[in-house]
Each structure stands twice: as structure tokens, then as C-alpha cells.
């Protein structure tokens, strides 16, 4: 097991290094002189020369990359052109908001996806199964920003039950925090719920066909116990792995949800960075998202090994 995990780690670290090279290479996509692009409206020769020196644009590209990577390894992501704050500080402030949103969305996804998937598998071919398929198709096809707009229209504009946007920190008011996160978490969670539902359904169908289920049924085990004690724990192994991977996807999906609901998280940070021509912020967010995504892939492997006794030896 340790060897397997070390092997996975041996793949993840070079991948992260490659990601860092690609993220660094992004600024080479800027048309013309990158110092001019970074300077934005401030086109004085002094500023441009200062930026050239600061970002080492006069140095060869490998030297620029090595200096940039060296800074990252010491936690120095650079300074935001727009806010003049260290990007590391901004990340530390915004990331917890997005992680909270991702956790709540995963909760919504599990609460919706697991039961619907199990019922669809047990009632295969019935109207309930077709309803579940429809839910799966809708979850994958409805843009989450449109769903967000429709929910705002219903619950905020028409009914006035929930705030249309904004974020209340849990330290300020737990109830206010939940109210502000309810719609965003639902919007972000439904797509993942559809994916979890589809996988749970197919995993349960496979599990219910296994010999141990047939044997237990032949021994007279009640259907409810058969499902909950025998089939479900085995069916959940791939679903847990999938759920861990989906957590990384939720961080990415948060970009649009945070924009719709004006939540000051990671996603809004990249959008503000894009429009503020704050390219270092964009690079930092992409790199951090990829790092979280790789960490989640590693944890998914770990979960798979821990839950599957045959791989533990």
C-alpha cells in the first residue's frame, strides 16, 4: 500500500511542476511586451522599466521561471497589481470561503445523489428510474449560473426569503452564513449530485448482481438489510473515490457561482484578477486550484486503497 501511494506521489509532484511551467508560460501568451500589459494604464517608462526589473523580463526565460518558482516555494506569489496586497494573503483570505461553499455543495450533492441513485438502481426500469435519469440529464445540462439566476428570481426577488447575494462569515452570524450559502451550495451541488447519482446507480446495479448478495438473499436476509449491509458498502467504494475527485471540480465550478451570488471567494478572485489585468493573481489561482485538484486525486487513491481490503496488503 505504501509503495502504491509513494508511486502516486511520484507522479503527482512532477505533474505539479509541469503545471507550474504551464502557468508561468501563460504570461508569454500576452500579446507584445508583457511589461506593457502588466502596466495597464500606467504607461510611464519608469513604471515599465520597474516592472521589467521586478519580473526579470530582461533575463532568459529559464532564469525568470526559476526565480518565480523559488518565490512560490517560499510562499511568495507576488503582489496584486489591483489591490497592492500580497497574493498569498489574498489566497489565505479567499480560499476558506470557497472551501466552505465546496463542502456545503458536496453535502447537497450527497444528500440528493446517493438516495436517488440507490432508489433508481433498486427500481430499475420503473418510472422512478426514468425520473432519476431525467434528474441526471438535467444536472449535467443546466448551466449553474442560469440556475442561480432563476433561484434568485424566485426566492429573493419574488418571495424575499433568501438574500440575492453577498456573504456573511460564520463568525459574524451562523444563521446568516447558512442563509447566504443555501442557494449557492444548491446551485453548485446539483451538477455533482447528478454525477454521484449516475455512479451510485450503476455501482448498486453491479453490487446487487454479485454472488454474496445472491447468497445472502438465499439465506433469507431481509431486502432492507441486504441493501444497507451487503450491497451499499461495496457500491460506495467507487462513489467515495469519485466524490473526492469531484471536490476539486467544485472548487472550479465555484467561479461562476461566486460571480452570480457575489461571494468573495477564490472564483471571484480569478474573475476580478482577469478584469483588473492582475495576471499574477490569475496564475496563483490556477496553480492553487491545480494543487488542490492533485491533492484530491491523491486522497481519492488513498480512500480507494483504505476502503478496498484487497489493496491494503
Amino acid at each position, binding site marked *: 500500500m505504501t509503495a502504491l501511494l509513494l508511486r502516486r506521489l511520484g507522479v503527482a509532484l512532477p*505533474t505539479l511542476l509541469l503545471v507550474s511551467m504551464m502557468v508561468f508560460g501563460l504570461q508569454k501568451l500576452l500579446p507584445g511586451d508583457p511589461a506593457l500589459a502588466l502596466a495597464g494604464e500606467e504607461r510611464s517608462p519608469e513604471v515599465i522599466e520597474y516592472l521589467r526589473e521586478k519580473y526579470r523580463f530582461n533575463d532568459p526565460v529559464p532564469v525568470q521561471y526559476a526565480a518565480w518558482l523559488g518565490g512560490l516555494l517560499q510562499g511568495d506569489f507576488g503582489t496584486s497589481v489591483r489591490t497592492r496586497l500580497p497574493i498569498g494573503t489574498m489566497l489565505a483570505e479567499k480560499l476558506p470561503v470557497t472551501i466552505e461553499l465546496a463542502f456545503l455543495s458536496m453535502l447537497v450533492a450527497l444528500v440528493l445523489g446517493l438516495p436517488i441513485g440507490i432508489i433508481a438502481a433498486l427500481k430499475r426500469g420503473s418510472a422512478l428510474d426514468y425520473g432519476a435519469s431525467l434528474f441526471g440529464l438535467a444536472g449535467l445540462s443546466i448551466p449553474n449560473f442560469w440556475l442561480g439566476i432563476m433561484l*434568485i428570481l424566485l426566492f429573493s426577488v419574488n418571495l424575499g426569503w433568501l438574500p440575492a447575494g453577498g456573504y456573511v462569515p460564520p463568525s459574524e452570524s451562523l444563521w446568516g452564513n447558512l442563509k447566504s450559502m443555501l442557494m449557492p451550495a444548491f446551485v453548485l451541488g446539483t451538477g455533482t449530485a447528478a454525477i454521484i447519482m449516475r455512479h451510485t446507480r450503476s455501482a448498486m446495479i453491479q453490487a446487487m448482481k454479485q454472488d454474496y448478495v445472491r447468497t445472502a438473499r438465499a439465506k433469507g436476509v431481509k431486502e432492507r438489510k441486504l441493501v444497507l449491509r451487503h450491497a451499499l458498502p461495496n457500491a460506495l467504494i467507487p462513489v467515495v473515490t469519485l466524490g473526492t475527485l469531484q471536490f476539486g471540480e467544485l472548487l472550479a465550478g465555484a467561479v461562476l457561482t461566486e460571480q452570480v451570488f457575489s461571494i468573495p471567494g477564490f472564483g471571484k478572485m480569478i474573475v476580478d484578477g482577469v*478584469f483588473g489585468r492582475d495576471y499574477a493573481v490569475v496564475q496563483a*489561482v490556477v496553480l492553487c*486550484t491545480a494543487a488542490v485538484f492533485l491533492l484530491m486525486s491523491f486522497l481519492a487513491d488513498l480512500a480507494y486503497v483504505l476502503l478496498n481490503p484487497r489493496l491494503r496488503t
Partner: protein
Amino acid sequence: MTLPATAPSATPARASSRSGLGRLLHEPSAIIGAAIVLFFTAIAIFAPFIAPYEPNTPDWMAIRSAPDAAHWFGTDDLGRDVLSRVIFGARASLAAGVVSVAVAVLIGVPFGMLAGYFGKFTDMVISRFADALLACPFLVLAIALAAFLGPSLENAMIAIGISAMPIFVRVARAQTLVVCTEDYIAAARSQGIGHVAILTGQILPNILPPIVVQATLTMAIAVLAEASLAFLGLGQLPPAPSWGSMLDVARQFLGEAPWMALWPGLAIIAVVVGFNLLGDGLNDALNPRD
């Protein structure tokens, strides 16, 4: 040179595609999906003839008019006909779907085939790059690329295409690995046929079905991604109509003109459902064992 090894491999491929087409016609989801996609394609092509109004011309006397006989879908904040803008918006969405997937396929498939065919160092380098691209979530990478390339529909399509490319590297590589174990590839190699001829004449025709399925499903993702980028202001630039940018404007007028948000969203859902149903149907028809 006509190669004997080509015939046996090409014949089953053609036979399989014929039976695949037959199976496709018996897949209700594929037929519904194809009908939806064809419907929107026709709308996009014949937009100037179908749209009741010019999509970009403001009408200051009809600002935010509710749906009525003159404007079936109502008008927007500048008095423009929402139905006409939804009809013309189909062009940006479908173009983004087709072009970005073409970019992804044209780059991803050759690299995936090279990785699967040559293996060893070539495979390691290409696969690591694909892994690195896959480690960046699709939308975040597309946003970053679109931001650095500059906001426009063309750049959005390139950004989506590059972000979707590693999916095709993976699919093409996996399929090439399977095909390379077949006897006809060994026979072609033993006859001294060149690598390029084997890759294009023997392997490519046999790995196409899963790539077609993946391309169809990726079009659904690309349409959603284009709408997302346009919603963020990184896609089609105003005043040209795009469903995503129409939604961005609409959310500022939710209380006064909710119809502005309704129709572009329903159009996105319809096209994405169409591509998803078609992709699922193609998958069932072309890969019946799945």
C-alpha cells in the same frame, strides 16, 4: 501501394460502422438528440431569414417590453427583440461547440496516437503534459487562457479547445494501445509499412468510434463553457448576441424583466441536452458492449 493488411482491418471497420448506424437509428435518445442539434443548426444557419427583427438594433420605444404578439420573447434593456437575439445567439454557441472540439480533436488525437503507438519516452512526455493540463480544472484553465489571449469569441474557442484537448489525448492513447495489440498491426509492421501509414491507414479508422462519441459529449461541455465565458465577459463581445452574455445583462434586470433571463438559459439547456442525448445514443450504438 495497396496493402493486403489494410483490407481486412478496413472492412470490419466499415461493417461495424454500418451496423453502428443501424443501431443508432433504433436509439430513441440519439434520434431526439440529433433532432434537437439539427433544429438549432438550422436556426443558426438560417437566422437572418427566421429572426423577426435585426438582433442588434435598439428600439427605444420598446425597452424591456414583456412578451406579446409583436415580441414573442419580449425585449431587452435596449429594446432589442429577445427572440431574434436568441436565434442569432445560436451561431456563437454552435460555432464554439464545433470549432473548439475540432481544435481539441486535431491536436489531442495525433498526440494520443503517438503516445499509444510509440510508448516509452514519447508516451511518458505526452501523458505527463496531458496529466498536467487535466490537473487544471476545465473552466479555470479556459478562463485563464481566455484572459491571457484577450476576450473574443475566437479566443474563447481556442481556450476551450486547448482545455478539452487532454481528454482526446487520453481517449486516443487508450484506444491506440488496444488496437496495437491486434494481429493486423503486427502484420503491417512485419511487411515494413511505415509508421505514418500504419497510424493513418490502420489505427485511425479503428479508433474513430470512441473519438466520435467523446467529441459529441465534449460539444455539450464546450457549449456550456462558451456560455460561461461569455457570461463572465470573456467570450462573444457585445453587441453581437451570445446566450451567455445575454444572461449576464439579464441578471441586472431580474425584477423588471425576468424574460430576459429565461429564454437564453432554456436555449443553452436545449442544445446541451441535445448533444448529451446524441453522445449517449452514439455510445450505445457504437460501443454496445459498454
